[in-house]
């Protein structure tokens, strides 16, 4: 859109329950101006790879459910704008469920992403 269509490379850490080691999927994602990391993840699952697991709810930075490691730093996917290529990993502070989904109920009070 707006003649500034570009594509970014998105590397996502993947894991099934009980799987050890690192496995990554890579995607080429067309990005519009001012897209969030959540928009990118939603696009990947909705268009490129139905198997990708992620969690999101409010989309406005309040529920903190979409906390991820974005290029190594804990961020909310919904309020973090895409600036270039991305590497996405689950929030290491919680037990992993699958891919980018972790079990946040184990530590209710400490879900805030560092900002």
């Amino acid at each position, binding site marked *: 859109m707006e003649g500034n269509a570009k594509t970014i490379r998105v590397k996502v850490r993947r894991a099934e329950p009980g799987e050890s080691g690192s496995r990554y999927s890579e995607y080429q994602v067309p990005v519009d101006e001012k897209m969030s990391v959540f928009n990118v993840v939603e696009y990947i699952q909705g268009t490129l790879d139905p198997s990708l697991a992620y969690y999101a709810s409010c989309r406005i930075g309040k529920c903190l459910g979409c906390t991820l490691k974005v290029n190594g730093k804990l961020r909310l996917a919904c309020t973090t*704008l895409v600036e270039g290529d991305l590497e996405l990993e689950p929030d290491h502070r919680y037990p992993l469920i699958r891919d980018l989904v972790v079990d946040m109920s184990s530590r209710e009070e400490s879900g805030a992403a560092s900002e």
Partner: protein
Amino acid sequence: MSSEQTLFHKTDVVIVGSEGAGATALIEAARRGLEAIVVTKGNGVGRSGATITGEADLAVDSRSIHERFRIQGSDPGDSKEQFFKDTVVGGKYLNQQDLVEAHVEDAPERLADLLAWGLKPLFVAKMSGHTYPRGVMVSAPELIRIYRKKTRETGAKVLNNTMVQDLLIRDGQCAGVFGVDLTTGRTVAILAKATLLATGGGMMIYPITTAPEELTGDGTAMAYRAGVELADMEFPMFLPGCFPWPQAVRGVNTPFKLSSAGMVHGHLLNKHGERFMARWDPVKMERTTRDILAVAIWTEIMEGRGGPHGGVFVSLRHLPENLIDYILEWLPPKYLKRYGGFDMKNFLPDLSRFAVESVPACHFFNGGIRVDKDCRTNLPGLYAAGEVTAGLHGANRLSGNAFTDMVVWGHRAAAAMAGDLKKFPRLEADPRQVESLRAKILAPFERSAGEDVRKLRRDLRRTAWEKVGIVRERAGLEEARLRVAELQEASSRIRLAYQGMVYNREWVQALEQENMLDNLVCMVEAALAREESRGAHYRKDFPQTDHRSWVVSQVLTRGADGVRVRKAAPVITRLQPPGDVQKYGI
């Protein structure tokens, strides 16, 4: 494919939904000594639902706020009677007035609970549609912290990441719920003497919404499939002024704050630069009521006079630059600069030079499960509270009443269940029903070929937006009826490309597809049958509000060959509706 059998739980009360209404019900149920299990699709309490998204105002009559709580900004001139009246006038006389009476009566009691639990009120605001300042402003994250703490203190089991899909029925009674633990893929049955649905609305049926991801009308749909009565499904409410773009902030209501909310007098323009509100309300223009704004903006967009991102334009260019600068200086810091976790300077252009685009976004479901003043449905053992219900708000909800809805009615549901519990034995599940529900839930894994749910979901949302949006007419609704039937047929043939059982989003989408379609089919039939315009329902082909023949609720049930619609007069206790035909929006 999991070969594990269904996991069974047993309890007195099962509550589906962990946020506002569900959490309130749990706290009260526990106080009354009931054993309860809470089930949520969310990843822990506070990680889902509309409660946390609110810029939270809790509506309570201003006299009670003044006399009992002494909160700044309250006005003792108000009364419960006036709050009742405003709610019914705002609801265009379709409210069940016995529900509204209970609502205004209980509201101060529930505010007292919240304050006793440590919630700090900020101030009281006068919101549109209210004669007096009744909006007790609180911080939603603060509220969620209280719900988390109180929920944990009950000691109740909370089944997180668990999607309930259907009700268990035995001997004409609700025997509990059936669903799936998304973290393992294992099916789950929770047997209970009483079941409470507190699942919220179905706003995700529309592609532009202020609501969170998981609000796909699940409770309403499972009730419908079990033969429970729904009502008022033609009244999904839209907030007239959200960003259609940029994508990150789609659904954020900053444009409304610039055009119509009161602090800033922006102009609404179409692609010709015409200030089109002059055609709808030449006196109040952009400051007319929300229903008229929504219809007007929608009409511009649908008739091809919108902008490149699908909205109309909000402009401040008629104001001098130094005044715009000054406005931005004196506005409360959070008014335009922050929205939730967004720093809005990333999304707002230089307002002295550029307009922003604005589109209505689906914000609330006035309709849902039909309940009485004790949250009972027509299925013994099944209760509903909060946004999933119909009747309190009628055809249009006033600001602040969503918050009051969840705390008043979550509490009332728990009280009613406690009183009724001895009437209901805890039934064993019907093994044939469990097997058939399990087979239905797992069916998308079994097919060797079939439909892609992601595409069907997009089609459903597009159909809802284009044909069952704000401005409706017979031809479009009839097209929607056909399209929904096609989608239902296609959705019965969904095949999952990814076959894993653990947190499989495609699978969740397939389950949600069934729910959204069951909502949408009711919305289409109710909108077709209502040949007038009222509140959140506008018919281009019947643009007037007909109080002679349409002060009726439409009750929807599932029949053998589709939705059955019957008319029922609302309960009227104090305020008689007018008897004439009026211009829409008055």
